[in-house]
């Protein structure tokens, strides 16, 4: 059992220092150095060729679109763009690459010296970006025969190289200090900010659950008052925003216990376990020199002209802070209402729902209440729910057209989430449409009035509020499939 120190306790003695490495898979059609497709989920080893299998005699050629995306990402992160840079070989022996090296960049990243501002609880934290460099993704290994499906204890491994060579951008921060207790939340906000930024740039699918956005979190603790950075650990592949926060928090409490005991933190790679929120040791971290980096002789240097860079700068979307201000004005939300959208991570989703035809108020209502609740119950992020903004807009369209009421709309959403198809199909399959058949409604209204003569008398005497009791009974008789407003109208028409 690993010892940990209570979080609040450790903060009295240590300052956390974070470093975040985010890998983004670009959404180019083809791979970084060959024409193989990058689509996710194909049969194993059907999206490979001599280049990405590293067969002798094959020669890589850089995908120009990937360079363009890399430059746009660098500009959006307020980075400087290299006037001249090269790809480099990172040498290591691991079967997720066939070549015994990964083509990456070393001391000449395409973008460097940037920053982003992220907001946590109304406070702004500046995260400095050290570099954003281009590289290729590795293949996927299945470890067979071991009890846990992990490397430890496995008898052999099976490799699928479909992902090998997919363009990646690795974004590395400078040490993030001064966030104190908020450090885990700042890290989460930073990754969320990157995700939104990359989505707005249109350069990646940014699906954390599919691995197109992955985060490695470096954590170390510095005794308060000291200025010497502590030994860091690197927790790998933390694959959801929630996990980023949990993994960092856990590492802080674990390292504090080691330091309190007078021992030293071991510099190592660690793995995060989604199930219990802990980390466990992986391999000891290689030093950069172990990778024996050298300039890739098979690829020509990249020298983006100033004109090209400025052309790409002109294609950047509005910066996130300005974008948020504009949306709030356009939508006419109060700070509280708008803040609830931002803090629930629904901004992009609400925006897309509005674009699909819903009013801002309706879009906000569905995402921030009903869907946020369901995401929370399922333990997933909002954008991982299997419902699209267009489908949410379609549900609201059904409400606006009087086909379903709010209560039925919730069942429609439940159906969409359960994979029963588009909203209209769910309505048809589940028989959810409100009864607009006046005949059936009239019968129900008459029956309820007849069964409640005293309530009816009150309404006749002008106590209109009493109608609520009758509306409820009619709705019950109609099994909820009636428009409450319409029922109220009919009752009042008959009694006043």
């Amino acid at each position: 059992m690993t010892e940990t120190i209570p979080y609040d306790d450790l903060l009295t003695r240590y300052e956390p220092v974070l470093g975040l490495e985010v890998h983004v898979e670009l959404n180019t059609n083809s791979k970084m150095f060959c024409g193989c497709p990058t689509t996710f989920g194909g049969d194993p080893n059907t999206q490979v060729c001599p280049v990405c299998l590293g067969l002798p005699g094959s020669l890589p050629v850089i995908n120009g679109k990937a360079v363009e995306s890399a430059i746009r990402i660098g500009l959006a992160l307020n980075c400087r763009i290299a006037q001249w840079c090269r790809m480099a070989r990172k040498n290591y022996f691991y079967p997720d690459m066939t070549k015994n090296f990964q083509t990456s960049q070393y001391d000449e990243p395409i973008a460097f010296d940037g920053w982003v501002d992220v907001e946590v609880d109304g406070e702004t934290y500046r995260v400095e970006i050290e570099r954003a460099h281009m590289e290729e993704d590795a293949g996927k290994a299945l470890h067979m025969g071991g009890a846990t499906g992990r490397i430890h204890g496995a008898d052999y491994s099976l490799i699928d190289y479909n992902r090998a060579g997919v363009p990646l951008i690795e974004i590395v921060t400078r040490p993030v200090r001064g966030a104190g207790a908020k450090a885990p939340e700042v890290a989460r906000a930073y990754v969320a900010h990157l995700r939104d930024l990359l989505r707005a740039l249109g350069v990646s699918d940014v699906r954390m659950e599919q691995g197109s956005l992955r985060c490695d979190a470096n954590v170390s603790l510095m005794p308060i008052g000291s200025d010497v950075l502590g030994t860091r650990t690197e927790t790998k592949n933390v694959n959801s925003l929630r996990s980023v926060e949990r993994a960092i928090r856990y590492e802080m409490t674990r390292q504090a216990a080691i330091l309190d005991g007078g021992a030293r933190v071991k510099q190592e790679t660690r793995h995060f376990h989604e199930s219990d929120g802990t980390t466990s040791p992986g391999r000891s971290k290689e030093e950069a020199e172990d990778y024996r980096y050298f300039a890739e002789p098979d690829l020509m240097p990249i020298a983006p002209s100033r004109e090209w860079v400025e052309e790409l700068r002109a294609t950047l979307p509005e910066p996130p802070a300005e974008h948020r201000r504009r949306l709030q004005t356009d939508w006419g939300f109060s700070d509280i209402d708008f803040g609830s959208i931002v803090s629930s991570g629904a901004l992009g989703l609400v925006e897309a729902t509005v674009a699909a035809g819903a009013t801002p108020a309706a879009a906000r209502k569905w995402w921030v209440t009903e869907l946020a609740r369901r995401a929370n119950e399922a333990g997933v992020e909002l954008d991982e729910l299997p419902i699209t903004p267009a489908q949410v807009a379609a549900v609201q369209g059904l409400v606006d057209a009087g086909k379903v009421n709010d209560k039925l709309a919730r069942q429609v959403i439940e159906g969409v989430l359960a994979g029963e198809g588009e909203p209209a199909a769910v309505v048809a399959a589940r028989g959810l449409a409100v009864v607009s058949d006046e005949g059936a409604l009239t019968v129900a209204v008459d029956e309820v009035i007849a069964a409640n003569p005293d309530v009816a008398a009150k309404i006749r005497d002008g106590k209109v509020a009493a109608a609520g009791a009758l509306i409820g009974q009619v709705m019950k008789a109609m099994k909820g499939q009636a428009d409450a407003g319409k029922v109220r109208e009919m009752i009042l028409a008959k009694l006043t």
Partner: protein
Amino acid sequence: MGITADDVARLGALARIRLTEQECHDLAPELNVILDSVRSVSEVAGPDVPMATHAIPLTNVFRDDVVTPSLTQDQALSGAPDQEDGRFRVPQILGEE
């Protein structure tokens, strides 16, 4: 400060080349000769000589982002020493975790 026999042993391990102690001792001076030669060249190349990575000074050699046919799974695996379920089968990955 040149390369020692220990450095050779370490480089050998990183490159997965098995070297005897004798080979490490023999190779160290040989590698030092190469390093010395590179050092001599570096002295000649002053700051006025631009860095070159290739005999032909080309930059920005890019391809269009167009998908071209891949190999079939059978073709991809045809050179594999071993395979299972459409995947390359490799020995247990040692010395990690």
